């Protein structure tokens, strides 16, 4: 991801994701998609389209993988800023 991030923002660990699609289905803004690429485990991981995240946390709570999804909310301030 190039350039400054806009918050809210959703980040999906491409290796931990198992591609089940629950987050894609649940996202109210429809800003997630299943990738065409495979990860090292043979899954097509979910990924963020790059804009439009509402920061609602729906994907985070829908995801069965503990660390696959991280959601930076609207008021998030990155370290060092």
């Amino acid at each position, binding site marked *: 991801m190039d350039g400054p991030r806009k918050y809210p923002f959703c980040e999906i660990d491409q290796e931990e994701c198992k591609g*089940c699609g629950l987050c894609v289905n649940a996202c109210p803004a429809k800003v997630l998609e299943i990738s065409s690429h495979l990860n090292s485990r043979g899954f097509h991981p979910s990924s963020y389209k790059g804009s439009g995240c509402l920061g609602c946390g729906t994907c985070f*709570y829908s995801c069965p*993988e*503990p*660390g696959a999804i991280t*959601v930076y909310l609207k008021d998030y301030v990155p370290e060092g800023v």
Partner: protein
Amino acid sequence: MKGAVLRKPGGFNDIYKHKPGADKDRTHYCPGCGHGILHKLIAEALEDLEITDRTIVISPVGCSVFAYYYFNTGNLQVPHGRAPAVATSVSRANPGSVVISYQGDGDLAAIGGNHILQAANRGENITVFFVNNAIYGMTGGQMAPTTLEGMKTTTTPYGRNPATDGYPMKVAEMLNSLYAPTFIARTSLHDIANIRKTRAAVRKALQYNMEKKGFSIVEVLSMCPSNWKLGAVESQNWIRDHMLEVYPLGTLRDRGAEVAPRVRPRPELDPARVRETLGLGEGSGVKLERPKETPVYPNPSVRIAGFGGQGVLSAGVVLANLGLEYGYNVSWLPSYGPEMRGGTANCSVKIQDGTIGDTEATKPHVLIALNRPSMEKFEPIVASGGTLIYNSTLIDVTPSRKDIRVLAVPITGLADELGNTKVQSMVAAGAFAAATGLFALDDIIRLLPSLYSGEAIVKLNEKAVKAGFDFVRGIKS
């Protein structure tokens, strides 16, 4: 919602170091499995309630058997269906801890059905998270007590037929018939609104646990895409379309506000009352002075091993009883298979002046080996400088250790000469006394009437003790 970022909750381990293989950063669950979501809700609550370091998660048998890979808590994995029983003991032994029993439907409602009923009925201060996915997951999709009518599983290939298979078991309703439970809720993971309701129920249940308000259970309807043979999203829809009708959601009971914290009375142990209750009076009546000679091992730990039926365990009991009469603290820890005769058996005996912690003799000062497999198994663990008494009647090899004292005693043969191989245990006890100097022969003989009844039996055992004792003293001279 907390903080400005939603990320892997602190109730999880960073890396799943106990998970075998290279995949230590991902769960073992199938894609779309409900366990992961519930794990996340629990781990988040543990972090937010700041109880991670005093929580103990009891994991069951089922797909969540490996919950201990993930939660950064104390963990116990227990036999099938027994999580509420273990949770009971953990909670009572550590009243300051938060104890979670995490169970699936096969575990909780089938094999463990009675355990959950009794724990709930006692109002144990534990929280149960009950994953209901209407199927046995780990074992490959067999019918569970919670399987829906008409639902196809590997054991109900034509669909569950109530005429032969019974009806779906409604655990939350069943437990709601009991007086003691504080909080009973059924929630679901089939969409975000219900996931958030599950999140709230998880927090409430844990909050009551922290407040010592007794038994709480959250039944969670959860997806099993692999065994339902559906995709992850289809599985959520299947819950909505099929399970909700049978398993209505909601809080069945919430008495948290009205229940006072449960304080269990501390058990009191008055040794005098115990003796009185057991009819022990003042002991056997024999108070023994310890032998004048200094024992070879002042606080010995002993291992006795052999075939079941050789008197292995009773030899240990005799040594422990003798120790008691001399005023030592003693312990006796038997280990044996399911057979009464044959098989192998061993026991650990500790005879000490101080407090005994571990009751297993992991580095025994004395090993009494009554058969060859036992000698081969336990010879390596004898403490350096220790003593190995082996039954030379049955063991046709000699021990190889050079740093221990080895005494070949024909224990079975000596007993056989007396006309009864059952007295091997007393021959062994006599050999032990002679080898260690811990017990005097006369004292053992004086004690025999309190251990055995019948003059002939006492006399026979007296001869056996003497035979073992004299044989070892004969070796020494």
